[in-house]
């Protein structure tokens, strides 16, 4: 090598060459347009679940009569103040307004599912974190119980328990809560164990921090985001679970309207085709699908933002 080979770049002086900055701070969460549409759909259903009874044209148990020409008679005494005269989505097998029943049903379906998911989360996270932190005996006992619950296919457990106790709304909430608490337990425990072995938790232990501090300040803030995303997925599973039971005639009992039961009640109408009575069965099914797909898309969007690591954990 000759000296001519040496090339020296323009020199900016000694003190400029400090450590290069790390990766830029994370950008804030922005939903894609799909995510935004989905969020709007979910918001609409939540709105209807909250205020449906005041918006729906008819009461869920109200029978509209139909004359030979297909016009509806309205009995003003049963009508709600602002009710529209026509049934936009037709009537069901008993002559009730399908649109109204879907709006009322939003309250039942979403209400039960949400309550059950909350229950599952409360129980699952409490016990899951407890198992991760307490270790050994507590963990072993809780994990074995959860294994036993998860040894039943969800729907089987539902069938067996409903066979024994009959179906009611509190039972459905408790049942779905219990079934899904088991899977939330597994996730919370795994997250808790992952975080427990992190150096910052070790640092807190070395400092002499108590268990309460470690759980509330070190573990939970770091588990919050993955758990929140998982809540969406879990909610979808619970909606599907409750709807399936209702569809089997083992969930919400008449005359309360509920999307799953509505599909079943009007199955006969399918035979008349789209122009006949099929709408009464199809529309509640579509209602379920819009809600669950929208929630799934939002979760997908968020986990794509989190670099897919979340999605991997939850497949």
């Amino acid at each position: 090598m000759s000296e001519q080979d040496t090339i020296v770049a323009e020199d900016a002086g000694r003190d400029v060459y400090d450590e290069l900055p790390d990766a830029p701070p994370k950008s804030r969460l922005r939903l894609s347009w799909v995510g935004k549409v989905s969020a709007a759909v979910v918001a609409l259903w939540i709105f209807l679940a909250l205020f449906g009874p005041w918006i729906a044209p008819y009461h869920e148990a109200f029978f509209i009569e139909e004359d030979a020409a297909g016009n509806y008679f309205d009995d003003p005494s049963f009508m709600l103040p602002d009710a529209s005269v026509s049934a936009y989505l037709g009537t069901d097998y008993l002559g009730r307004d399908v649109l109204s029943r879907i709006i009322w049903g939003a309250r039942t379906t979403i209400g039960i599912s949400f309550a059950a998911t909350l229950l599952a989360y409360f129980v699952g996270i409490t016990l899951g974190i407890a198992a991760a932190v307490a270790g050994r005996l507590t963990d072993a006992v809780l994990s074995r119980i959860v294994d036993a619950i998860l040894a039943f296919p969800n729907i089987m457990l539902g069938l067996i328990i409903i066979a024994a106790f009959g179906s009611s709304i509190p039972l459905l909430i408790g049942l779905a809560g219990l079934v899904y608490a088991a899977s939330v337990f597994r996730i919370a425990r795994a997250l808790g164990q992952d975080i427990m072995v992190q150096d910052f938790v070790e640092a807190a232990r070395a400092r002499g921090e108590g268990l309460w501090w470690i759980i509330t300040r070190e573990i939970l803030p770091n588990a919050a985001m993955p758990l929140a995303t998982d809540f969406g997925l879990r909610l979808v599973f619970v909606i599907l679970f409750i709807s399936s039971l209702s569809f089997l005639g083992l969930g919400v009992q008449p005359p309360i309207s509920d999307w799953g039961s509505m599909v079943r009640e009007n199955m006969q109408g399918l035979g008349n085709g789209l122009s006949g009575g099929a709408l009464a069965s199809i529309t509640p099914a579509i209602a379920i699908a819009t809600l669950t797909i929208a929630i799934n898309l939002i979760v997908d969007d968020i986990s794509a933002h989190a670099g897919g690591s979340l999605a991997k954990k939850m497949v």
Partner: protein
Amino acid sequence: MTDTSNEPANVLEVHDLMIEARPHGAPPIPIVKGVSFDVKPGQVVALIGESGSGKTTISLAALGYTKPGLHFSGGEVLLQGEDMELVSDERKRQLRGENVAYLAQSAAATFNPALKIGEQVTESAVLHGAMTQEAATQRAEELYRALELPDPDRIGGRYPHQVSGGQLQRLMAAMALVSRPSLLVLDEPTTALDVTTQIEVLKAFKKVIQEEGSAAIYVTHDLAVVAQIADHIVVLYGGKVMEQGSAEQIVTNPQHSYTKRLMAAVRPSPVAGLGDSMAGDHLRDVPALEVRDVTAGYGKGADGKPLITVLRDVNVTIERGHVVGIIGESGCGKSTLARVMAGLLPASEGEVLLDGHALPPSVKERKREDLQLVQFVFQMADTALNPKQRIGDIIGRPLQFYHNVHGRELREEVRRILDLVELPAVFADRFPAELSGGQKQRVNLARALAARPEVLLCDEVTSALDTIVGANVIELLKNLRDKTGVSFVFISHDLSTVASFADEVVVLYAGRVVEKGPVDQVLSPPFHPYTRLLIASVPELRVGWLEETMQTREALAGIARGVTLTDVGCPFFDRCPVAIEGTCDKLTPPTREDQSGHGHYIECHREVVELGGAGATAPA
């Protein structure tokens, strides 16, 4: 810059190369900003730089490859005249493996766990139609021999997890060399290895590259390594070339201020007289921290002893205001010792004394005042700082917890501590993710200092940092020692770092203290054979060091051998050039004191006098 026309054509010419990252929905970020250099046949060109310099990205460009998310945005990369940015995918596939081959940093990750080593080594050559399977297998076996791999006939039939890390690294070299490429790209191939393994692998690489006559790009952050292997050095910073020239010239006479700064940050090789030893000062009647006859490990056996014993009968004394360095290769028990001191891992036997009184073994049983006085600083600041807490809260917590400081006073104190570790006060409101690696490590130190400890346990605090950043952290530690009078236990696998900072050194091998004493004593003869091996293995920043070192008895006997944990005898027995058959493998070695009277102890069956003379080729 351009060579005269009668020289052979360059293997690789990189002209004004530009590569940028194109993140979703954001403007592109330039990563490589106009880099030019050439690689001549048979020449080894080193790309040297710290993280973010773009060195790996540039080296991959030689294969026409960019990591996901990165794109070529300008310039050309001519591999034997073909522009790797433009050639078709099919042609690229032919050139890769055939004309240019890649060696990655971690062989453990780059070998497919489900396929046999032999298949992976020969795959490229066979697929490209360069050789038949038999010819390729035979060639691979020759390479295994050349690379001094054990059992060359059969190692190809094994799976990657069945061989050691150093061996895998060499097997990867075989994989790259099978089809005799004209250019090798080596990406930090020795960084993940222990020093003693590193020189063995380096030597093998150098030998093979010379024999095969292929040109190479060698990517690294370590100037001392580069000096051993490179002909030409390209110094990179922030995606630009700062300086390039012959290895000799860059090492002996750097021109650019960045290169000079990089050189200054490289710690000189460990010889006596380096450390600003404070032995004799600060001495009081009781040591700050003392470890007595400690045995510890993981798991719990039936008899109350650990299932895997990591430390055996360890005695260490930390005097007030002193820095005690603990060194040894990975797996020797350094970190375990620190964890025993902190109470994170209760010792199964022996005790830990603070200011002369025995501490309960487990952190759970220790009193808050005792915990406050011994603080642990974790190796990886990335994981040691809770990502969901602000820097101010992280540093403020020990103040609240141990000293009941609150409100305004707390904020003032956090500010003062940030100042102590040379960080601006505005950092108090930031989250760890908004800081660079070096800054995070300073916060990590600040949190420990906030407790106002007597002893700070620093576990490899500089090993994850870049050279210059690491050197700055060491400077900071020296300042802190002088300002606060805190005692340090400084754990490192890097002998040079320890030598420049510690007052006393403890050498651990396989969970035993094999030598300890004031740093000057330990670094000058007589040596424990293991200490000698360690010293001999640290690369020196001069050309030609590698060849000299490989001839020493230590190197021949001890390099690239696994550590065996034994219950009986001296654990270093099988790597020791002066082992006494029948004694060293049967009996636990006695502790001998050096004549100097400075508290220099060596645990060896050989007499101190013998050790002073043994292994005549001591490093310069």
